[in-house]
């Protein structure tokens, strides 16, 4: 789960990670008010969308006075911001963060992620702040200092010092740097983060260390113990169909093609998308209805897939293992009747009781195209939508 920068900064404050003074605003008036309540200008007005690259897209501006803050907020609020991460359709800006501008001496990078190979959280720090860490890793990997943390001890002082000295930080800044790193790690663990990234972490001219920007992602699997965090999610940032699918416990991701796909199992769903593409068509979605796809799941799956007007045909690919094909076929027939599906449906069933399953489909009075195997199914659906 992703949250906005202003929400991340409010959480950082709670964990004593220093951030610039400021607050979020929904209107230009509110933006002005925030600026007026800050000690002094200049100010920064920052569009609050989840995607990165906001500055280049015109979503971050500096202002000298509260008047200018109001004017800039008016421009930014409601704009559709297009960045390299939003896709060409962009993202509408509904809120701005107004902060005190900083006089910057140095820009650093600090990030924490779970490392899959090591099976541990890794803290990364770099003197090359303000750039995307992937770019730094590709071009100048020697600039990134890493420390893998033992989850039983947590981040030890020497590890924070290794990072700070490793990037050549002024020894005078050692204390604030160590506490910055340790506090960020404490938050990473306490909130079940899957990413905590401060980029840039700035050293100001007056010698303070501040999180100028902040990106926090949370582990979806841990949301059951963070109900307060779940409330921070912004539905405006999600695809409406993906949002709807999640309510029904369906794994759905919208893509740009026209062949809807309903599959049981995530791996098989990905493999089915790949086959559709190889057959010359484009998948409209990823949808995993789960290992034990019930009639209800299938019905909801149809509703979601057909909620995308681009869909010209649906490919159902089910490997019935524990789930029997006859049960599934009855579910599909029921669902097609309930949802009133008007596009062609290609069904590929395999596994337990497959013969009975195919018969239920063929004698249902509904128009199904039954495919022999995955390859055949993808070819047939490509022809039907082509």
């Amino acid at each position, binding site marked *: 789960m992703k949250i906005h920068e202003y929400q991340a900064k409010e959480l950082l404050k709670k964990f004593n990670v220093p951030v610039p003074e400021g607050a979020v605003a929904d209107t230009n008036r509110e933006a002005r008010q925030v600026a007026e309540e800050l000690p002094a200008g200049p100010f920064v007005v920052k569009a609050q969308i989840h995607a990165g690259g906001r500055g280049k897209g015109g979503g971050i501006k500096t202002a000298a006075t509260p008047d200018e803050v109001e004017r800039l907020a008016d421009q930014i609020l409601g704009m559709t911001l297009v960045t390299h*991460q939003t896709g060409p359709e962009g993202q509408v800006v509904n809120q701005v963060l107004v902060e005190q501008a900083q006089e910057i001496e140095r820009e650093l990078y600090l990030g924490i992620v*779970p490392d*899959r*190979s090591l*099976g*541990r*959280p890794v803290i990364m720090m770099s003197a090359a702040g303000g750039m*995307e*860490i*992937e770019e730094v890793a590709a071009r100048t990997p020697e600039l990134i200092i890493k420390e893998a943390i*033992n*989850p*039983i001890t947590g981040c030890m002082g020497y590890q924070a010092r290794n990072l700070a000295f490793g990037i050549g930080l002024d020894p005078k800044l050692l204390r604030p740097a160590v506490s910055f790193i340790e506090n960020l790690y404490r938050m990473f*663990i306490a909130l*079940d983060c*899957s990413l905590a990234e401060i980029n840039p972490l700035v050293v100001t001219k007056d010698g303070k260390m501040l999180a100028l920007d902040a990106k926090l992602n949370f*582990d*979806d*699997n*841990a949301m*059951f*113990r963070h109900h307060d965090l779940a409330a921070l999610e912004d539905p405006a940032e999600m695809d409406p169909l993906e949002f709807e699918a999640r309510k029904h416990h369906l*794994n759905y*991701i919208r*893509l740009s093609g026209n062949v809807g796909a309903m*599959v*049981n*199992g*995530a*791996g*098989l*769903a*990905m*493999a089915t*998308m*790949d*086959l*559709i*593409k*190889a057959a010359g068509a484009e*998948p409209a979605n*990823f949808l*995993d209805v789960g*290992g034990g796809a019930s009639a209800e799941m299938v019905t909801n799956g149809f509703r979601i897939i057909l909620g995308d007007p681009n869909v010209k045909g649906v490919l159902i690919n089910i*490997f019935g*293992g*524990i789930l029997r094909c006859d049960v599934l076929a009855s579910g599909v027939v029921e669902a097609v009747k309930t949802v009133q599906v008007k596009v062609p449906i290609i069904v590929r069933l*395999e*596994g*337990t009781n497959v013969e009975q399953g195919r018969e239920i489909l063929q004698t249902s009075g509904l128009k199904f195209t039954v495919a022999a*195997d*995955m*390859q055949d199914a*993808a070819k047939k659906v490509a022809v039907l939508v082509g």
Partner: protein
Amino acid sequence: MSVLVNNDTRVVVQGVTGKEGSFHALACAQYGTKVVAGVTPGKGGQQVEAIPVFNTVAQAVKDTGANTSLIFVPPAFAADAILEAAAAGVKVAVCITEGIPTLDMIKVMAVLKDSDCRLIGPNCPGIISPGQAKVGIMPGHIHKPGSMGLVSRSGTLTYEAVHQMSLLGIGQSTCVGIGGDPIIGTNFIDMLQLFQADPQTEGIVLIGEIGGAAEEEAAAFISRHVSKPVVGFIAGQTAPPGKRMGHAGAIISGGSGKASDKIAALTQAGVTMTTIGELGQTVKRVMGSRT
């Protein structure tokens, strides 16, 4: 032979009185697996059909000689269940549970490092050595005893591959689903090592997917240490970056974890890459051409 589970496997099912736990405990027993015990705290003394239920894994191990655990405990309690199995002396713990928090698994792995318990999963279908033992949720009847070892990050995709192979008369020594989560107990390299050393296994099928670098690490290992033929498949060539494709671990992030990189690395290591539609035929061709 075979790896991880065989005729000597004695299974304790954790979460045996739950809906899924009881269903699959009985399905495993029906396949011929020695399911000797179940555990649900507070329900010790009950029975699930012929399977005796214990309060603790330690008691189950002591009374029944269970050496393998199959875990169906809900995500919030799964880390505890895995460590309970390890502490009780179980040698192989198979965790089916999907949705365990990553930081819980990080702690589990830090403890298991100093234990001789091997964890398979979580978020996996389990292990089957056809004709000997099934410790998982896969449909047993699609498998066929034979000489191909299979290792995969996915569930139904594995069934698809097995089904194609069995229809062509190609049997399997052991099939292992290592799980779709970012932090898992046993990785491709561990399995490649076991299959390479297993005399029954003559060839290996490796099924990967987008996310992480486990396939690239496997490729490096294969070129140095695996002499048996390997057939590979990677799911997710059409997956968009930044989106989690069902499995918690299936995500392309920051330009890494792409299918194309994994396919290139495995091809470079001498693995015969195939498509899912042709997997069975490819295995047949590769294994048939051996002298």
